[in-house]
C-alpha cells in the first residue's frame, strides 16, 4: 500500500498530451493506483460522504471511505457536520467499527482514548498513570491532538468531504452547470428507499468512464430496444465543467406521446416482444421539465442519477487495482405519496445490480480488465465527437470521458 510521498515520481506514460488516447496501463498498474489515492482521492477533489438526512440529530454518524481511506462523518452538538479520518491518533486503530449510528463521543476500543464530536482528543485512559506510576509524560497535552480533519460541504442534501485545504468551495469547484444539475434533482428532502452494492472485478475508472459514456447506452443495454419501447427521445445534451471531471448529460422525453404509445401497444396483438407489465417504465414528469434522464458525475467517484422516476446516488469505491465497489443509494422524497413510491419501486427494476439497463455495466468493466491482463500495451481510443472535452448539444459523443481524463491528467501531473 502506498505511503504518503513515496509514490512513484511519474505515472504511466501517455502517448501524447491529448485526452483521446488512453494508455491501457492506467487500469492495471499498481503504482498508478497508489498515486491516484494520493493525488485524486486525497487531493483537491470533493468526495461524496453521505446524505444530510442520515445525520439528523447530534451524534448521528456515518462511517465511510474516501478512496480507500476510512472516514467518519458526524453531526456535533452545535449542529455542524464534521468529518475526520477514522484512525485513532494513539496507535492508529480503527476508531469506529459500525457503518452508522449515534454516539455521544468516539471511544477507541484499544486503549480507551476518547474524542468529542469535533474530533478533538478529550480523554486518555490512565493519563496520569496508576497510583502515580506510569502515565503520559508531562509535556503530552491532549489539546494538541485531534483526528485528522476532512473539510465538509453540503449541496442539495448531499454531504461531500475533501482532504484538501486549498480546493475551492464545492459549488465553485463543480461550476454553475453541474451545481444546477445537482440542485435540480435534489429539490426536495430525500429519504433512502434502499441501498446495496456490487463488487466489480475491474479498476474503478472503467466504471466511472462507463457512466460518462453516452455512446454505449443503446448498444450494450438492449432492454428498451428488445421490448420495442419507443423512447421518443428528443435531443439532449452534455454539460462538462471547467476541470472536465464532473458533468451531466440529459435527454428529454415526450411523456404524453409515450403514454399514447402504451395504449396503442396494448391494442396490438404482436405482443411477443412487448412487456407483459409496462409499469416498469410508466413514468411521470416529476420535475416538470420533460427531462427523463439526467446522469451527473462528480469527480472522482460519485454519480447522481435520475432515470425516469428512479433517483439514486452511486458511489464508486476503489478496492485495489482490479477491484471496485459500487454502492447504490435509492432515494424517494418527502413529497411522495404511496403511488409515487410504488412507481419508483417498480421502475427500480431498471437500475441496480439486477437492473434491466444497468446490469451489463457490472460485468463489462471486468471483461475489459480480463482482456488487459498482461496485455496492457497500447492505448484505447476515445474520439467520438472529437478530441476535446467541451459541453455539447448532442450525446453521440465521448466528450464526458475525455473530460474525466482532462481532470485526471491535470491532478496526476503526467
Amino acid at each position, binding site marked *: 500500500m502506498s505511503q504518503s510521498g513515496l509514490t512513484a515520481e511519474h505515472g504511466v506514460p501517455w502517448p501524447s498530451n491529448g485526452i483521446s488516447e488512453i494508455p491501457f496501463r492506467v487500469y492495471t498498474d499498481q503504482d498508478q493506483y497508489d498515486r491516484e489515492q494520493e493525488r485524486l482521492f486525497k487531493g483537491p477533489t470533493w468526495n461524496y460522504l453521505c446524505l444530510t438526512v442520515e445525520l439528523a440529530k447530534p451524534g448521528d454518524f456515518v462511517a465511510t471511505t474516501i478512496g480507500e481511506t476510512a472516514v467518519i462523518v458526524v453531526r456535533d452538538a452545535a449542529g455542524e457536520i464534521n468529518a475526520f479520518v477514522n484512525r485513532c491518533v494513539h496507535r492508529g486503530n480503527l476508531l469506529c467499527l459500525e457503518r452508522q449510528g449515534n454516539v455521544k463521543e468516539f471511544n477507541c476500543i484499544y486503549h480507551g482514548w476518547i474524542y468529542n464530536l469535533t474530533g478533538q482528543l478529550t480523554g486518555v485512559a490512565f493519563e496520569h498513570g496508576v497510583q502515580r506510576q506510569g502515565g503520559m509524560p508531562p509535556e503530552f497535552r491532549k489539546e494538541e491532538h485531534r483526528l485528522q480533519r476532512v473539510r465538509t460541504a453540503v449541496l442539495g442534501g448531499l454531504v461531500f468531504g475533501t482532504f484538501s485545504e486549498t480546493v475551492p468551495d464545492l459549488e465553485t469547484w463543480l461550476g454553475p452547470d453541474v451545481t444546477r444539475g445537482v440542485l435540480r434533482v435534489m429539490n426536495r428532502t430525500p429519504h433512502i*428507499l434502499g441501498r446495496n452494492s456490487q463488487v466489480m472485478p475491474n479498476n474503478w475508472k472503467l466504471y466511472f468512464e462507463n457512466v460518462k459514456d453516452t455512446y454505449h447506452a443503446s448498444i450494450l443495454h438492449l432492454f428498451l430496444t428488445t421490448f420495442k419501447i419507443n423512447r421518443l427521445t428528443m435531443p439532449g445534451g452534455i454539460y462538462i465543467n471547467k476541470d472536465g471531471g464532473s458533468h451531466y448529460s440529459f435527454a428529454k422525453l415526450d411523456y404524453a406521446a409515450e403514454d399514447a404509445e402504451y395504449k396503442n401497444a396494448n391494442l396490438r396483438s404482436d405482443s411477443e416482444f412487448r412487456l407483459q407489465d409496462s409499469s*416498469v417504465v410508466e413514468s411521470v414528469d416529476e420535475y416538470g421539465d420533460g427531462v427523463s434522464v439526467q446522469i451527473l458525475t462528480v469527480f472522482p467517484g460519485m454519480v447522481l442519477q435520475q432515470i425516469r422516476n428512479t433517483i439514486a446516488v452511486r458511489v464508486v469505491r476503489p478496492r485495489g487495482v482490479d477491484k471496485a465497489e459500487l454502492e447504490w443509494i435509492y432515494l424517494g422524497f418527502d413529497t411522495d405519496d404511496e403511488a409515487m413510491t410504488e412507481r419508483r419501486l*417498480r421502475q427500480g427494476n431498471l437500475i441496480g445490480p439486477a437492473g434491466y439497463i444497468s446490469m451489463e455495466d457490472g460485468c463489462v468493466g471486468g471483461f475489459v480488465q480480463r482482456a488487459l491482463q498482461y496485455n496492457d500495451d497500447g492505448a484505447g481510443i476515445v474520439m467520438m465527437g472529437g478530441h476535446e472535452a467541451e459541453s455539447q448539444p448532442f450525446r453521440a459523443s465521448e466528450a464526458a470521458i475525455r473530460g474525466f481524463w482532462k481532470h485526471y491528467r491535470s491532478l496526476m501531473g503526467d
Partner: protein
Amino acid sequence: MDDVAIRLGVQELIGDYAERIDEDRLEEWPDLFAESCRYLVIGRHDHEAGMRQGMMYAATKGMLLDRVFSIRRANIFEAHRYRHVVGPIRLKEVTGQVAVVHSHFIVARIMHDGATTLFATGRYLDRIDISAAPYRFNERIVVLDSDKIDTLLAIPL
C-alpha cells in the same frame, strides 16, 4: 386440512422453485406464483429497517414474465447457473388459505468456465396459497444476508 398435507405441499412448491431455476427452466418459474403476487429480493439490513427497494421486484405475474424474457433476450452477461440448497422449512402459521413459511438457502453460482463460488445466502419469507394443489406463492421475499452482490444479479434467487 391436516398439517402434514400442508407441509408436504409446501415442501413440493419450494423444491420445485429451486429446481426450475437451477435446471434453467426459467420460463416455468413465474407459474409458481399466484396471479396476484409479490416477489422481492432485498438485503437483510434494509428489510429489517423497513426499507422497500431491493434488487428485484415484481408486483404482478407479468413483471415476473418480463424478468425472464429480459434475461433470455435482452440482458448481456456471462452464462452461469445456480445451485440452490434450501435448508429447514418452517411452517410458521396457517390462516385460512394462506400458509406463512420461512426457509433458509444458500446459492452457489457456477460460471460457464466452471468457476464455482458461494453467491448468496439468506431466507425465504413466503406467503403460500394453499387453497388448491399444487400450491402457489402469493408472496416470496428473498432476504439476502449480505447487501453486496458479486458483479451482477441476472437470474432470480
